[in-house]
């Protein structure tokens, strides 16, 4: 399988991390750690288990994400795209590097599904584009309600045909603006079509090489198609059965009927029940981290590897650390420290009498004594003065908080 496909990871453009303010002010989104492991390594690991070698993986980034390039240099090939390009135009710029059918991933997706199953499905259905979606069921069950894969309010409405084709896709953010008009030819191609609102699009697409051709042709026609998910995908879904679109792709004459059938344009959906989460806003980032801390029966396989490698570090006897917290190497913990359900990165210094709960603390952070930190995210090399109370605050890189402060719901940058 790995011979046939090339993986392309959209490493980060200008807009990457815009919803993750202030964590990504001077820090690439791809390198944000979840459970102390940078996000992009998750994707690279998943691809490696599926058999993709370094020569098959291509990461598209802009020049201001140089640290990412340095980090992954031996595991993938890097290609720099221009600064203002979006997902689809970035693909166009990299077209010489793309030689086969490809699988397009975004850099912020955490999935537990097996890529090989997806590739098998794509091949067997002879689809042009296959989207990986997760089916979720948010009906209130007993006890706590289930948590969605995407904590945003927006969701997609998809029309899925009986043979798993994707016939219509709209995003619903505003109740009144739903546009549910579908072309008749598209609807008639399947016997029964379900209108589903509980499918979460993981932004992983397996595409045939022809799709790149199509992008080229469309850009020649001056149709403004920059963004993959918001513009290109709805466009090809809407015109699935349109003869003009097919003609753009293949240049040879549409000859015999059975040949024509094989060349048809179809967009399929591979529905999985496995774990998936897209980490592009703060709530999802926190949720992903919390999910990585779950141990035992309900643990998520994706994160289990990390939990096994947790080093034993030394901490004083009177420190109360809950078993599901993750503490990185080289961290020094003072006396009478309470840590609950938190992730602490490497080489941190935590003073005495500190209470940390439900927080995410990255590398090289200094927390002075007598602090209370709840529901916060502290980025690399930040510092918190003594006797400070922080509640739901987010600190950017190199930020510092002065001593004896009580802050709540704040974003602090340098």
């Amino acid at each position, binding site marked *: 399988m790995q011979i046939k496909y090339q993986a392309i990871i959209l490493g980060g453009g200008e807009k990457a991390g815009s919803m993750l303010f202030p964590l990504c002010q001077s820090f690439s989104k791809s390198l944000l750690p979840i459970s102390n492991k940078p996000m992009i390594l998750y994707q690279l690991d998943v691809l490696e288990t599926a058999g993709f070698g370094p020569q098959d993986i291509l990461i598209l980034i802009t020049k201001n994400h140089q640290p990412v390039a340095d980090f992954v240099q031996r595991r993938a090939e890097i290609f720099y795209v221009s600064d203002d390009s979006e997902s689809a135009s970035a693909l166009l710029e990299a077209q010489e590097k793309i030689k086969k059918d490809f699988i397009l991933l975004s850099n912020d997706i955490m999935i537990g599904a097996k890529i090989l199953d997806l590739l098998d499905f794509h091949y067997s259905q002879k689809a042009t584009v296959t989207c990986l979606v997760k089916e*979720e*069921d*948010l*009906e209130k069950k007993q006890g706590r309600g289930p948590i*969605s894969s995407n904590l945003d*309010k927006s*969701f997609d*409405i998809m*029309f899925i045909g009986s043979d798993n084709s994707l016939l219509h896709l709209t995003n*619903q953010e505003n109740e009144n603006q*739903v546009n*549910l*008009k*579908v*072309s*008749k*030819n598209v*609807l*008639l*191609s*399947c*016997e*029964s*079509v*379900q*209108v*589903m*609102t*509980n499918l979460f699009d993981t932004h992983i697409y397996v595409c045939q090489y022809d799709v790149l051709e199509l992008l080229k042709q469309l850009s020649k026609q001056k149709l403004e198609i920059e963004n993959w998910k918001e513009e290109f995908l709805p466009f090809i879904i809407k015109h699935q*059965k*349109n*003869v*003009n679109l097919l003609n753009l792709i293949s240049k040879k004459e549409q000859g015999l009927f059975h040949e024509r059938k094989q060349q048809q344009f179809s967009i399929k959906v591979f529905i999985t029940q496995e774990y998936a989460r897209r980490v592009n806003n703060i709530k999802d980032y926190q949720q992903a981290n919390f999910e990585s801390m779950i141990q035992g029966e309900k643990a998520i396989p994706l994160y289990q590897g990390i939990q096994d490698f947790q080093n034993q570090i030394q901490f004083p006897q009177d420190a109360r650390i809950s078993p599901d917290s993750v503490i990185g190497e080289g961290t020094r913990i003072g006396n009478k420290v309470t840590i609950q359900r938190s992730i602490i990165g490497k080489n941190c210094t935590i003073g005495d009498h500190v209470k940390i709960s439900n927080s995410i603390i990255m590398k090289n952070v200094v927390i002075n004594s007598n602090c209370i930190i709840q529901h916060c995210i502290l980025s690399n090399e930040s510092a918190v003065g003594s006797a400070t109370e922080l509640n739901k605050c987010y600190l950017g890189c190199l930020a510092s908080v002065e001593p004896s402060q009580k802050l709540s719901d704040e974003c602090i940058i340098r």
Partner: protein
Amino acid sequence: MSEFYAVILADCFDDKFDHLTNTIPKSLFPFVDDLIIEHQINWLQKNEIDKIIVLYRNQKIVEYFNNRKRPGRKTLEIQLIDILNSRNLGDALRELQSHLIIQQDFLLLFGDVITNISLKEVTNKYHEQRKQDKMNILLMVVHQGVQQYEEERFLYVVEKDDKLYQLADLQQNQFELNKKHITLTKGMPCNYVIKSNLIESGIYICNRDVLKSFQEYFMFAEIKQDFIKYMTSTSDIQEEKIHLYIAPKIQVSQRIFHIQSYHNACLKYLSRFFFPYCPSQKYYIDFFKYFAGKVDQRSKVSDQSYIGQNTEVKSKTIITKSIIGKNCKIGVGCEIVNSILWDNIQIENNIIIKDSIITSGCIIKNSIQSQIVSTDKSTNYQQLITPSKYDVDPFEFQGSQDDSFESSGSNQDSDKLGSQPKKQNFYQDLIDDMISIVAKCSTISQVKEAIINVDTIKVNSNIPFENIVTAFMQAFFKILQPNVDSLKNAYELWQEFINRFVSETEVASYIKSIETFCRQNQEYHLNQFLQLSYQHSILNEQVILNYLDQIKQAENDQFAQEFTETSSKFKNYLENIIAEQCLTQAENQDGEYEYEYVYE
């Protein structure tokens, strides 16, 4: 089951079989071995429904039932109700309601349905639904299959429990999901399914409330277009609910809309699709060839053919997928392909019949000269008219492969003459009424009242649009004076009225009445009428251009020629507009193509 009536609508209101249904109603068409209505009665009996009401328009049904003797069957109660001058299903149901026979639920069956759907499950489901909610008034029976014909092509949007949410026909290119009652929330499992593999079977189980709604909204004409559409989309609160019963895959039905479906239904019946309703076993069967007549050994009969009793087929004849009735005589060397022949037909030697329907009592002779007469409504199929004998000269054996034939005079004239005087009187009354209405109106609000008045007259007396338009034009001309201003004012005033009653089919009579008026009174100019009509959007460009072309070709008509000269400018103006429209349309075209309906 004791109170359960079955209502058979033993006539059709469309004109697909026009030449045939002028004399025999569709329910009395022979379907392979028996009449359609007999098949339906048989089916109803097997499903334990004994009370049948037949709604008819044609007296032939009364004659038929009076002479009907079917030994060995249980006694049925068959009531015949005359639906007089009903022009659509709605009127028929209103007529039925006025007889006050039906007190509870009933089964509505169209007169052209052949089916083997078992009604026990259907009625069980219906009663269950009624117990749950008194507002479930209609249960529509559908079966699964590939939608073949235009009339079958609908998209069914179905909710849980097979409740019908929306029924969309595929006239336009886009399908729009009705947003009024829909609730889409994140993460909920799917509620709505859009199905395109369901086919309406023509069987509906209705409550008495259905009849009441038809009476309330007396504009309802059809079940699908009006009633179901109203109940599912336009009503503000979806109180009344319509459910679907989806028959399991072995139970099918076929409606006979037009010739193709007629032939297809016959073939399906012969291939035992409608098991257990199949041609009788007493005929000789050889793998779906049924024949009880005498067929010469040197003839070839293909499968899916049926040859009735006492029919003689002589040598060297090839019969392919055709159905031949009783007492026919077919000569030597004929070729009958994909045709339906009724009873008592004589066909001489060396005749080819393809894709035709030949009704009872015809004699088809052979002669050297070939003469082909085509009927006006033919596309691929041509229709024969009825029962009197006539002499026809078809083609020779050697060459022509065309589909035939002929029409002839029939004995209908006497009927027409009898009814004409009545019609004329009635028509005169209408004109007088119209004149009085028109004379009174001088403001736009009065015109609106006039519209309502005329509407009620139309519905009460079932007058076709055409008569109303001609009557109105007579009245209209009376109030005009021969100057342009008067014309303009009159059109301004009556614009809404004319728009309401002159639609595409009445345009011809509208223009015709103006033309005759202008011919008679030289002070009025046809040109002005046409331009004003165009300005007020009563006529569109294409119609006017067609009319102008037509009148140009009239020879020896001074009026026409003068008119063509004066109207040339207007004609150029219209042609320019049409050219512009074509250009803009060409830019916006999408190139959608028809998807072949093959489910893999």
